[in-house]
């Protein structure tokens, strides 16, 4: 095994070059004023203070709200699906999981474009409505469209991580619960649900974190005025050209993500301690 240790070196080089260095650059930009020259930096905290403007705070809160609702919807929709799959025959389990993951084979951008053509004013859905004689609906550039796109994109992560735990659940525990007089509902609430919490928690990590920083979905399905924190950062870099401010927001975002990761990890640890299993840990 020892001989293979040196194989890690190219990766270290790769990662430092393309991950660590750019990140350090972001930190550098965040703490300096614009118009830097290569040798002289003017350090400042202004970029961070600037963020504490009601306009930007509102964007942050909106992002958290959208991510939170997305996560909740994913749990509410994903749990029953995961439960049904986990209780299906082994053959159908494989097939169903394949179907759930199938859309992930296609680029997220492409899938989001597909939603545009379904939801837009002259799109598939409105054509159908017109066909059966119902009034047209404004679907694009609404909260509904953004939420739909978010849930659609992140749901598979939630389903897979809950399914993994449920599928591993010892069926004897369910028998034991029935044996002790608990009906199917009581068994679910007292045995299955608590034991599947680690899966829900890793699902939350997998959905909430990307959802809070996404910018493609709100941009395409929410329209230009739909501003989430991801879009704000994108704008600073691409439209406004304020790299320093953009970097500062990125850092704030990174901090929030790290904090929520630590929180979910702690929850995960508590849950697995209680279940005494390693179940549900995807990392």
């Amino acid at each position: 095994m020892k001989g293979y240790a040196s194989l890690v070196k190219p990766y270290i080089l790769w990662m430092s070059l393309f991950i660590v260095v750019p990140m350090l650059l972001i930190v550098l930009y965040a703490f300096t004023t614009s118009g830097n020259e290569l040798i002289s930096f003017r350090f400042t905290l202004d970029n961070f203070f600037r963020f504490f403007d009601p306009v930007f705070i509102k964007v942050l809160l909106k992002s958290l709200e959208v991510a939170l609702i997305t996560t909740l919807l994913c749990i509410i929709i994903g749990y029953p699906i995961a439960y049904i799959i986990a209780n299906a025959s082994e053959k159908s389990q494989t097939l169903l999981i394949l179907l759930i993951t199938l859309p992930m084979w296609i680029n997220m951008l492409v899938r989001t474009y597909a939603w545009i053509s379904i939801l837009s004013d002259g799109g598939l859905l409105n054509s159908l409505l017109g066909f059966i004689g119902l009034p047209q609906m404004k679907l694009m550039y609404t909260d509904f469209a953004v939420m739909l796109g978010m849930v659609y994109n992140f749901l598979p992560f939630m389903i897979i991580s809950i399914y993994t735990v449920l599928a591993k659940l010892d069926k004897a525990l369910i028998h034991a619960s029935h044996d002790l007089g608990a009906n199917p509902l009581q068994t679910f609430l007292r045995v299955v649900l608590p034991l599947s919490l680690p899966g829900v928690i890793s699902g939350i990590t997998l959905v909430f974190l990307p959802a809070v920083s996404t910018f493609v979905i709100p941009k395409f399905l929410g329209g230009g005025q739909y501003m989430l924190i991801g879009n704000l950062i994108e704008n600073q870099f691409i439209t406004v050209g304020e790299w320093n401010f953009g970097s500062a927001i990125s850092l704030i975002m990174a901090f929030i993500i790290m904090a929520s990761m630590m929180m979910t990890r702690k929850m995960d640890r508590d849950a697995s301690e209680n279940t005494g299993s390693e179940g549900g840990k995807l990392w």
Partner: protein
Amino acid sequence: MRKLIEFKNIVKSFDDSLVLKGINLSIHENEFVTLLGPSGCGKTTLLRILGGFISQNEGHVYFDDIEISNVPPYKREINTVFQRYALFPHMNVHDNIAFGLHIKKQDKQMIEQKVKKMLKLVNLQGYEDRPVTLLSGGQQQRVAIARALVNEPMVLLLDEPLGALDLKLRKEMQVELKKIQQEVGITFIYVTHDQEEALTMSDTIVVMNNGEIQQIGSPTDIYNEPENRFVADFIGESNILEGVMLEDYKVKFDDQTFECVDYGFEDNLEVDIVLRPEDIDIVPLDMGRIKGVIKSAIFKGVHFEVVVETPYREWIIHTTDKVELDKEVGLHFFPEDIHIMYKMGTY
């Protein structure tokens, strides 16, 4: 004793294989019944049908004279100790034991009292707050028993509950289980493939093979009067030979005629004969009824397992005396040591 459970013509198949081929069995109150047989004989399947976890293809199950085939497991007055205990890993010892009582919404104080009593019964006082995942196999076993018994079931099902324990612990638990059964005074139905375990604990042993019952009887009956070659072979070591029942009290094997105590067979019927290794004595050459040469002697702790070769077969004999290899000896046994059985499939 009152009849509590009755299986009537239970047939069960999984996919294409027939696992139970028409089981008829009655179990009484306060009885310690063991379903004994090799793996795949259908004993666990029968237990699961009684627990309600699977349903039979044909036949009826009666509990207290009421058909329960369509009653879901959570409505049966039966509790189970599962093969790998199936304790709830997210609960501590107390909550595991109290699970059934909580479901029945019993009074808090009552629950505490009953849990305490159970912990005492299984010798786990002071373990209330321990997470079950940190207990040893033997302790988990006790929690599983307490969790089942606290519901005061009329019948306790035990599905190879000692299989995962080491030999010493298994022996201790055998004694303890029997003690618990006598203390709580309910019916235990115990599934095992370990014949010694069955002989130690049971009031009644049901020997099963290939989805059929081979013999039902007390441990001594099963050991001393096996009904066929399978039972004789499965319960302890035996010399099983083929012979002919010449007439009542006279059997012929290895070209010699021997006196025996069995009667009521057809004259000249081909039969199977059992001679237990501990019933045969090694004696000086001229005093034996059969002559042979000692081939091997293996020390087994309490006794030697000796193999004596005759022109017809090798005999296994258990003796506490030391023997000399390659020595010509005689074998002696009494008429009552010869046990005659019908050949399988002829009765």
